[in-house]
């Protein structure tokens, strides 16, 4: 199990290399890196410039939920290694927010599992984004499309 919730940035290359080190049965690693965007896509006014973002989280429950999501991925797909790193605190546009990675002998399993991790994480891990714009701070609203993305894994049999 590899779940980390931290304020610090992470080194994607080093993390992915460490994930597969010593296991030459791994055929590939699918990963996703989420970045802070400078435009608030879900804002009601639309397109406001975002100067910074603060990620609040629920210490303890966050790690617990991420571990549950990882366990679900491991139950659904044949994975050799899984990694989720999620940052909290104040971040600037272009900063890395999250890294999800799945290593498997099979590329389809790696891709599906990694996508699943991101979709579930988006709707289940207790993080909340507050954006700073010229008009002040505001909480990012949850997106219906994220609920839909998570829901499609409920009925899917990989």
């Amino acid at each position, binding site marked *: 199990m590899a779940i980390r919730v931290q304020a610090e940035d992470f080194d994607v290359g080093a993390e992915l290399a460490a994930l597969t080190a010593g296991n030459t049965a791994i055929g590939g690693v699918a990963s996703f890196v989420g970045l802070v965007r400078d435009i608030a896509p879900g804002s009601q006014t639309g397109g406001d410039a975002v100067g910074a973002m603060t990620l*609040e989280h629920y210490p303890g429950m966050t790690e617990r939920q991420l571990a549950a999501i990882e366990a679900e991925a491991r139950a659904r797909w044949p994975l050799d290694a899984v990694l989720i790193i*999620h940052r909290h605190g104040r971040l600037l546009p272009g900063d890395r927010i999250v890294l999800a990675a799945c290593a498997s002998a099979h590329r389809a399993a790696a891709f599906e599992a990694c996508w699943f991790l991101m979709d579930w994480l988006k709707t289940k891990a*207790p993080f*909340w984004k507050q954006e700073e714009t010229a008009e002040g701070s505001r*909480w990012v609203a*949850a997106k219906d499309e994220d609920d839909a993305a998570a829901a499609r894994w409920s009925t899917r049999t990989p």
Partner: protein
Amino acid sequence: MRILYFAWLRAKIGMSEEEVALPAGVATTGDLITWLASRGPNYADALANRAVVKVAVNQDYVGLDHPLAAGDEVALFPPVTGG
């Protein structure tokens, strides 16, 4: 019972956590929210739209019919927006 608030629920209520004695007649998470909403305009405002209030008990998501015990850690927060 420890109650935690996050994101705009925390901001509207004006605190991140509080310790409350489980009041008589409060058996479930739904009862707790109804009772909290009666405690003042800040609570009433924060809890006005129950559809956007998520509840966790002891760090697991639960529904509004979840039974409560004295030592529980209850958290109330809006839909999550991480990732």
